[in-house]
């Protein structure tokens, strides 16, 4: 097997120190990234388990598998776990943490100890969330709408609110670390327009984390105080306005969507040029569109509230602004497509995920245009149409990007290659399972099935059965990579420093990198995505040589 090392095993960040203490007290950004990887994978499967239970319950129109209360807790905690404990930390805290210093040629993030602190905050929040789940859970929906959450729900709203509050701090600190690192720690020669677009995407993400997260933090504090002390700020029977909660909540939670999707866009922007062997099309526009999305993303929040009772004029303003944010997203899609034009494309696993991302994100984005159109939104908001729309963005977009990135950088992270053919198979299963799960939900929503329904009129059953069937396929698709990644850590082929012939700085150090990332301080004197001057690897991935050779020959 592959255990026979090509070179004598050199010292790297994985084997430099051993023992649990060397991990729990590490300040190495790469090790912290792996800590995050373990913890978010754990929460991903918890959230996924809730999702499967939800789908199983919806197999039949009657509420038969679980009680109504249980069902309400399931979708609430599915949302909270997936949004706050998986999607928001996913790409930034794992891939970003690992790659930001490597890509810009730094030894570490600017504040390594704060980086570790932010992981501990995440764990504290996660433990609190788990405790909340195990001792009764919460049933407000992940949106915590008042006055239900403050005055009517009998579940553990305070605990869940605090858990999310703490995880928010973790997210703020990650963003803060990235911004400072990108500004202050770039290697000589790494000018702003030589930065990989992954960095630009993370920079934009960090801006949102810094400026948006505090608002939900204070909002949750007010909810917790209101519930504990009956303040009345959001309670209409005490003169408060429940819509104020929604404004404050969405001021963060809409931009939060971009916290989840922008890093995935960054991943795709790395993968597409690499496997097209081509310079990215329109570097400046892709970079600026990330910043544009981050800024414009703050202007559109009330499009979640078109039927909530906001003023007609505010609705018009927010609808118009919502279209503005669609423009930079469109620019990105066009540029990725244009990058492939006249390229030399290989269908490796990361590229397959990138294809999936572009396709599904486009679907999600375009249905978003319908939701932003006031007249249509009235009909489809709060229905399964919205569910399908944001799962196309979040699962089809963010998770696809995350998995694509995990495959792309797995050789760098672990020093091993994953099995390519299994990888492609998993990508295919995920793509098919995803569409089977969520496409029917567009139709369900258009037909009028409201979201968060435990039982539903029988005419919706056929589409629900399809969706449930899809979700089981999707589950297999997600389990598969976990299994073969684990397998590859021991049995995978030893990865060379740059298995894909990619251009980034992270590929110019060994795999896995040494603790301080580079043996010699890097000096950058080439442009980003300089694929003209980088030879493509002989065959994309060493272990599929036979198969590829057959096709090529």
């Amino acid at each position, binding site marked *: 097997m592959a255990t026979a090392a090509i070179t004598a095993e050199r010292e790297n960040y994985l084997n430099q120190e051993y023992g649990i203490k060397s991990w729990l007290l590490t300040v190495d950004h790469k090790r912290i990234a792996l800590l995050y990887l373990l913890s978010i994978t754990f929460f991903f499967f918890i959230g996924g388990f809730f999702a499967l239970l939800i789908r199983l319950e919806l197999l039949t129109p009657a509420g038969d598998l679980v009680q109504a209360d249980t069902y309400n807790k399931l979708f609430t905690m599915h949302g909270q776990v997936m949004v706050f404990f998986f999607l928001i930390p996913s790409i930034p805290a794992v891939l970003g943490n690992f790659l930001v210093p490597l890509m810009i040629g730094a030894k*570490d993030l600017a504040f390594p100890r704060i980086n570790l602190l932010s992981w501990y905050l995440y764990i504290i929040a996660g433990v609190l969330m788990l405790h909340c789940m195990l001792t009764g859970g919460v049933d407000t929906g992940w949106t915590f709408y008042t006055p239900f959450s403050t005055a009517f729900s009998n579940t553990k709203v305070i605990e869940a609110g605090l858990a999310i509050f703490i995880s928010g701090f973790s997210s703020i600190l990650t963003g*803060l670390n990235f911004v400072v690192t990108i500004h202050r720690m770039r290697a000589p020669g790494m000018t702003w327009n030589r930065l990989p677009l992954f960095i630009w995407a993370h920079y934009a993400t960090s801006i949102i984390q*810094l*400026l948006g997260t505090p*608002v939900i933090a*204070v*909002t949750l504090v007010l909810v917790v105080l209101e519930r504990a002390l009956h*303040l*009345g700020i959001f309670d209409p029977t005490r*003169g408060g306005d429940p819509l104020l909660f929604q404004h404050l909540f969405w001021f963060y939670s809409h931009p939060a969507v971009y916290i989840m999707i922008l890093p995935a866009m960054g991943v795709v922007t790395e993968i597409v040029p690499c496997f097209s062997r081509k310079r990215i099309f329109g570097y400046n526009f892709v970079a600026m569109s990330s910043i544009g999305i981050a800024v414009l993303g703050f202007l559109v929040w009330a499009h979640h509230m078109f039927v909530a009772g906001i003023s007609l004029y505010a609705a018009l303003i927010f609808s118009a602004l919502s279209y503005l944010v669609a423009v930079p997203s469109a620019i990105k899609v066009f540029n990725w497509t244009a990058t492939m034009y006249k390229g030399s494309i290989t269908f490796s696993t990361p590229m397959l995920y990138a294809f999936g991302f572009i396709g599904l994100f486009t679907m999600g984005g375009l249905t978003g245009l319908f939701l932003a159109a006031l007249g249509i939104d009235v009909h489809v908001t709060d229905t399964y149409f919205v569910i399908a729309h944001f799962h196309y963005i979040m699962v089809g977009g963010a998770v696809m990007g995350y998995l694509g990135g995990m495959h792309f950088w797995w050789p760098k992270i672990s020093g091993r290659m994953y099995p390519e053919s299994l990888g492609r198979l998993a990508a295919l299963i995920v793509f098919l399972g995803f569409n089977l799960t969520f496409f029917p939900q567009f139709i369900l929503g258009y037909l009028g099935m409201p979201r968060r329904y435990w039982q539903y009129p029988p005419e919706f059953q056929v589409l629900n059965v399809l969706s449930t069937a899809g979700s089981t396929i999707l589950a297999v698709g997600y389990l598969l990579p976990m299994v073969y990644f684990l397998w590859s850590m021991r049995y995978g082929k030893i990865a060379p420093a740059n298995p894909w012939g990619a251009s980034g700085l992270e590929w110019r150090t060994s795999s896995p990198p040494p603790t301080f990332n580079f043996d010699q301080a890097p000096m950058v004197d080439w442009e980003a995505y300089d694929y003209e001057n980088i030879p493509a690897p002989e065959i994309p991935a060493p272990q599929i040589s036979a198969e590829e050779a057959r096709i090529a020959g």
Partner: protein
Amino acid sequence: MPDSPIAVAHHNPELQHHFADMEQQRDASSLGMWLFLATEIMFFGGMFCAYLIYRLWYFPEFAAASNSLDITLGTVNTAVLICSSLTVVLAVHAAQIGKRQAQVIYLALTLVLGLAFLGIKAVEWTSKFKEHHIPGASFHFEGEVPGHPGQPVDQQHAQIFFSLYFAMTGMHALHMIIGVGIFSYLLYYAWRGRYTPEYHTPLENSGLYWHFVDIVWIYLFPLLYLIDRKK
């Protein structure tokens, strides 16, 4: 610790391994602090947003409730905080020019002023508690709409003012308490002589934090205490 005033930057023991030199380290910390303060602006911003909207909705009650606050204590507290900002500035200044004793004195003064602020705040809160102005079951507010003698204000709307008052001043006081903690730490290390003209970033950044908390109060004071005071 005898400091050599001409210590070369990269020999400084305070330089962390992943920075190239002291200047990079200092710039990074300072930017980090400013970004943190930006998040703090948004954190208080959420409450300012709630305040703004309810003040527009329930102006008479806000005015009446605001008039029940103790304006003398409020003004004194503002002055106390401004003085503490000055002592922070002076402490940083002392570090810049390498005067250890002055550093210690100014930091100690800052602590005293910070605690004085919290003390006065506690007195104010206690009297609010006695007057049943704490939102909740026993909330009771007797006041008239300013300019309309005989018109009692709506209890619930006044309660919203006090909810925001306690949320905002409480959150501000929490920041003050954290600040006092940080400054105690600084005082100890300043006494040990850790902060030199070459390295006093912690002092500088904590100073930024302290000034920020001061600025929040500079806005809270007129917004909470000075609504429609004209008689």
